[in-house]
């Protein structure tokens, strides 16, 4: 019950915040980029398949770059509003278990990430339909692969749990925006180098991308989702024991 009450309060806190707007802005950026790239493309090869290329590109950019960035910003903003006026001392003096407060923050970050990923899927479909209208040679691209799109989006989201858990802990543990942003930027930046290395199989910021690789798929899901669940519990344990300044 207390979890539902805290989540209800978290919803109100999101009102008029950048955190809420980012949910829509980030997928829109990828959709516009892909839409213009395909619309303005001079020719399409004979083997070009719109409903394979477009979802793969959209979810690929999302998994490796935009989603980690979104998670960084969302968690930093969500928890930054609690550091601003040192709200923790008010919230944690209320008759609510501390672990509920922490887990609610994780759930909200996860929900925003899920909503944003879902919005990306909707934009993928819209962008594809628009391109089919604007480029007659692609008009017969076949049915929209709703099932595959939904499955891939869900896998990417699941594999990102570890990133969400890490950022939830970092952005609650340190009050400065710089620490949270620094962690996200470094994590995403080093992913570029880790991608081709064997360590890339276990690198948290690459896990959402790894679900598209047969060889790395199992590790990505296990480490991403189960590792994420373990990480959020460890972060929660730290939060529950910590003094409130």
């Amino acid at each position: 019950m207390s979890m539902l009450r805290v989540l209800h309060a978290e919803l109100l806190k999101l009102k008029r915040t950048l955190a809420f707007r980012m949910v829509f802005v980030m997928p829109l950026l990828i959709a516009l980029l892909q839409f213009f790239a395909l619309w303005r493309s001079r020719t399409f090869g004979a083997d070009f398949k719109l409903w394979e290329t477009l979802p793969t590109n959209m979810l690929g950019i999302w998994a490796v770059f935009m989603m980690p960035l979104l998670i960084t910003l969302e968690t930093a903003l969500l928890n930054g509003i609690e550091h601003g006026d040192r709200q923790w001392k008010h919230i944690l003096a209320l008759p609510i278990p501390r672990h509920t407060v922490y887990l609610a923050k994780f759930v909200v970050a996860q929900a925003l990430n899920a909503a944003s990923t879902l919005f990306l899927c909707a934009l993928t479909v819209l962008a594809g339909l628009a391109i089919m209208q604007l480029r007659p040679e692609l008009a017969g691209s076949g049915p929209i692969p709703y099932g595959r799109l939904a499955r891939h989006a869900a896998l990417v989201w699941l594999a990102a749990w570890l990133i969400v858990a890490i950022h939830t802990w970092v952005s609650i543990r340190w009050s400065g925006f710089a620490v949270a942003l620094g962690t996200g930027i470094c994590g995403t930046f080093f992913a570029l180098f880790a991608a081709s290395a064997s360590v890339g199989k276990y690198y948290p910021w690459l896990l959402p991308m790894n679900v598209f690789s047969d060889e790395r798929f199992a590790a990505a899901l296990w480490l991403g989702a189960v590792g994420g669940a373990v990480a959020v519990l460890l972060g929660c344990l730290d939060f529950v024991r910590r003094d409130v300044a």
Partner: protein
Amino acid sequence: MPEFMIETRGLTRRFGAQLAVDDLNLQAPAAGVYGFLGPNGAGKTTAIRMLLGLIRPDAGEVNLFGAPLAADRQTLMRRVGALVEAPSLYPHLTGRENLEVTRRMLGAPRALIDRALDIVKLTRDARRRVREYSLGMRQRLGLALALLNEPELLILDEPTNGLDPAGIHEMRDLLRRLPAEFGVTVFLSSHLLSEVEQIAGHIGIIHEGRLLFQGTLSELQSQHRARLTLGVNQSEQAVHCLTAAGWGVEMRDDGLLSVSATTSEDAVRVNNLLTGQRLEVFHLAPAQVSLEDIFLTLTGGKTAAGRAA
């Protein structure tokens, strides 16, 4: 109703090598205002954070409403409202929305928001965003947050900090009304005695983590009664003579003595004792000690004994 709304036993907390709160035994009686006094850095905020369960004590225990806090914090905190230092507000939300956030967390009825706004007189500004609020309005909204759940005990840490004289006056009036009109016990910290002496029935004075005094203002005054200022030709011999006779004596910087005698009969006895020893008394006068002087003396703000005695 328990005798004490707040009772701590041997409450101790260290930060590294520094002992922030040392063996603190607070007893705040029900109904009324308890002033928790001490200079900045005396350990007030650390003690209050332990009362609210925000930090854990190294030793000792906190009892609220006669029950140990450690055993069931959730249930006890339902009956407590708190405002620790500056109010914790979301500037992008309106005053009412700020209260709504806390109301949702508590699962309290909506009507309590209007009640809290009414008590702190913020109903008219409730729909404005908090970033437009003055410091005084923010402080009142902080108090409204603390009052939201109709608490029996209100714990406030320096609620007038940073307010202008009008804001301080307003806050003081508000706090004075709470016990009488709503039956709330108010536990209030401050570094200024003048801020609480008009509203607090009981006070506790903390300095360097230790409780130096606890009781009513009149008890504090009676423990530090007026002293005699004494001028005598041979001060050292007079000190020896008076000390041997059981009087408390302090030598002042200006060469006069301060004697722990209070009544006019005492003055006569002191005079007779000294003249009997062939010492020449040229000055003998009682001096009142103000509460502020007592507070400053206790907390080492100034050596008021020398000035006031």
